[in-house]
């Protein structure tokens, strides 16, 4: 336990150094920049912004944890996120007559199902046709993006059919906002609950156990009469479902409508979130929060540093590389004889 704290401290200190170095390299005032980063991510409203940004990352990150634990390299989070959003928007559209209290969960469930079914497509291609998920999901991402763009200019387009976006859902359908001054909404609790559910599922249920077994050694699973195919399908389906749910939460939590630019790369970022979290749901929670804070902080920095938007990407790239590098270094020092 103590080691965890020492390591955590080391990582944080290292990250700070990396951040400072990056900022200094670009000729920004270090103290001021750090203040802006902290203000944007931690103080008062900053914390809320961190949580808002972390929510979809945690959900989609959990999805990646599930898939990767089952040995499936799902990098189709982005596509599953987009299709999930469409599923939610479709239900919101056809269900206008349904009372909001009932419709709200239905929209989220639809988002989950749509994302899950879309992911299951890649799963089926793997199980039935031996197409690698890494590749099929990369390709499906491109397809999903076009599908999304088509849907918001076609069947799901707003009633007036002018803009490439869906109609805004009525306020009553939106998730409850905890604070009017920012977008902090109850979706945060969905994310937290999902962390708990996924943890319990993976580590406390026979199915979760089998899923991890299949991920570690599908042949051993088969030899023990556990059919990998169905479990893998389940895993990627749940994975896509969580990405879809992330989109549904963003839809009902923040935008209330879909249009171009709806996805902010959540599905891609989910991968580093899951991997930095050690492919553990609790880890994904913390790395989701870390990324949320990083985005909230660096956006704030970009906004008010006078340097403009572009540095956000540099800082984020350097921070991810730095984080991974530090972790790897520590890992290396700790286990001179690494396990397999």
């Amino acid at each position, binding site marked *: 336990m103590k080691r965890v704290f020492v390591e955590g401290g080391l990582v944080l200190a290292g990250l700070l150094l990396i951040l400072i170095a990056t900022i200094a390299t670009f000729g920004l005032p270090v103290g001021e920049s750090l203040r802006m980063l902290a203000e944007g991510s931690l103080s008062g409203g900053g914390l809320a912004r961190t949580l808002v940004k972390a929510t979809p990352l945690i959900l989609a990150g959990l999805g990646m944890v599930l898939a990767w634990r089952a040995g499936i390299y799902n990098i189709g989070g982005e596509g599953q996120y987009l299709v999930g959003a469409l599923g939610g928007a479709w239900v919101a559209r056809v269900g206008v007559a349904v009372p909001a209290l009932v419709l709200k969960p239905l929209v989220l469930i639809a988002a989950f199902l749509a994302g899950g079914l879309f992911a299951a497509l890649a799963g089926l291609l793997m199980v039935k046709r031996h197409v690698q998920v890494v590749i099929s999901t990369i390709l499906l991402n491109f397809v999903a993006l076009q599908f999304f763009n088509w849907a918001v200019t076609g069947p799901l387009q707003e009633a007036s059919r002018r803009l490439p976006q869906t109609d805004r859902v009525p306020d009553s359908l939106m998730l409850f906002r905890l604070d009017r001054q920012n977008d902090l909404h109850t979706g945060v609790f969905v994310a937290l609950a999902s962390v708990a559910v996924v943890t319990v599922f993976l580590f406390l249920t026979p199915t979760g156990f089998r899923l991890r077994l299949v991920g570690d*050694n599908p042949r*051993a699973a088969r030899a023990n009469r556990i059919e990998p195919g169905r479990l893998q399908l389940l895993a990627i389906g749940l994975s896509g479902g969580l990405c879809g749910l992330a989109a549904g939460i963003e839809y009902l939590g923040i935008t209330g409508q879909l249009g171009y630019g709806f996805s902010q790369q959540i599905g891609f970022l989910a991968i580093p979130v899951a991997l930095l979290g050690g492919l553990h749901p609790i880890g994904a929670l913390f790395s989701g929060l870390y990324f949320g804070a990083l985005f909230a902080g660096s956006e704030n920095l970009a906004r008010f540093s006078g340097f403009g938007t572009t540095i956000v990407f540099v800082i984020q790239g350097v921070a991810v590389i730095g984080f991974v590098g530090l972790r790897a270094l520590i890992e290396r020092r700790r286990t001179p004889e690494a396990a397999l």
Partner: protein
Amino acid sequence: MNDVVLEVTGIGKRFGAVQALRDVSAQFRSGEIHAVLGENGAGKTTLMNVLAGFVVPDVGTVTYRGKPLPFGEPIAIRRMGLEMVHQHFMLVPAFSVEENVALAHIPGLLRPLRASRLAEPAVRLAKDMGWEIAPSARTNGLPVGAQQRVEILKALTGKGDVLILDEPTAVLGPDEIDDLFRVLRGLRDQGRAIVLIAHKLSEIMAIADRVTVLRRGEFVGTGVPTPVGNGGLDARTLALWMVGELPEARHDRSVAASEEGLALESILVRGDRGEAAVRDLTLAVRRGTVVGIGGVDGNGQVELAEAVVGVRPLVQGEVRWRGERARAGRPQVAYVPQDRRGDGLALRMSVLENLLVAGHRDSALKRGPFLRLGAAARWARGLVERFQIKIGSISDPVGGLSGGNQQKVIVARELSSEPELLVVVNPTRGLDLRATRYVHDQVRRARNAGASVLLISTDLDEIAELSDETYYLSRGEVRPAALGAAALVGGVP
């Protein structure tokens, strides 16, 4: 002749909490076959890995012809003239046999290379030895025995004057072992130094010029093996050196019940490449009996086992349990697969979780839809104790255990469930004496409790010792063989 090629002095190596080697010294001479003996986890492999450059010792020195050995530099060491056959095959599964041989003999990274040409010496040697190898076959389609042959051929065709073989005989049939030993003797006579690890005392007695024994990482002694009675290093003394004391072998053949159990009716099973691996095979294993099936590896053993436990589909015929077909009357099945690392274990998962592979179905370890982790841990610790698995903690990854202890994890988990049908393939491969006895006892216990046991093994002594009925498999067909190893050997074409 007979000058010291490798001089090992005071080698110590610690892995985390395990002191794998402690102050080990030995001399390996040219023109000598030097056996290294010890229980599972005694440190044999570690010592060999030190010699070959894959493990850097904490203390000690090794000199090769008077020059210090560059620890941790396998390339330099190979260039100096050390070849090694690893306990876990260093074969690229997706490569053809000749590519694997070529990999060991690359003339230079930038030079053009034809795998078939580089593999020629190995193919020729195989022919000389009477071993069958298919140079262009993909390695992962080969039975373990064939892979072992390739692995050995790779080393034998190297230019090294020191040859280290870590358990090369574990999966070879008797004939193949004879062939290998013949070649090794030849190489010895040419003046090469040969270091050989094996668990079977009979093999050691048959070939070794000298023996060094390790026990729990410590050097016990070096001596010249002699037949029983001369007061020299006979089998019994060697065993004592290895273990400290010798457990009693038990033989309780209380076969009584003979209810109908497993019945195979003209089954046809295909292998991974679609070939008919098991052909028209009919066999009955009554309850409370052990049916042993011998034969050289690669004659359909794996496919037969997998078909019986239901992992591999039947193309024809049927598998019945107590007269009922297939799924209807499914018995409680336990299965110890032949490839422990490939089919048996999830190496990155913990000992506990690997035990749970069987246990998670057990209703005693579940509450509602959830696993009872506390109860599971208690259950797992019980198994570890009962089966004497040497581990630090049940949450250690199983990949870190010695091969023998890995095998025990599988055996423990499979036999923990009071199986009605037990299918075991080479259950004691690579196990030391004590562990082997224990596993045999467990198999008998299961049989005595009324299980039908199908034992498939390349180890004829094992078959002879455990089986009530014996057969051998040849090219996918099963033939009865009279009880007794000698008869079995005679029966194999």
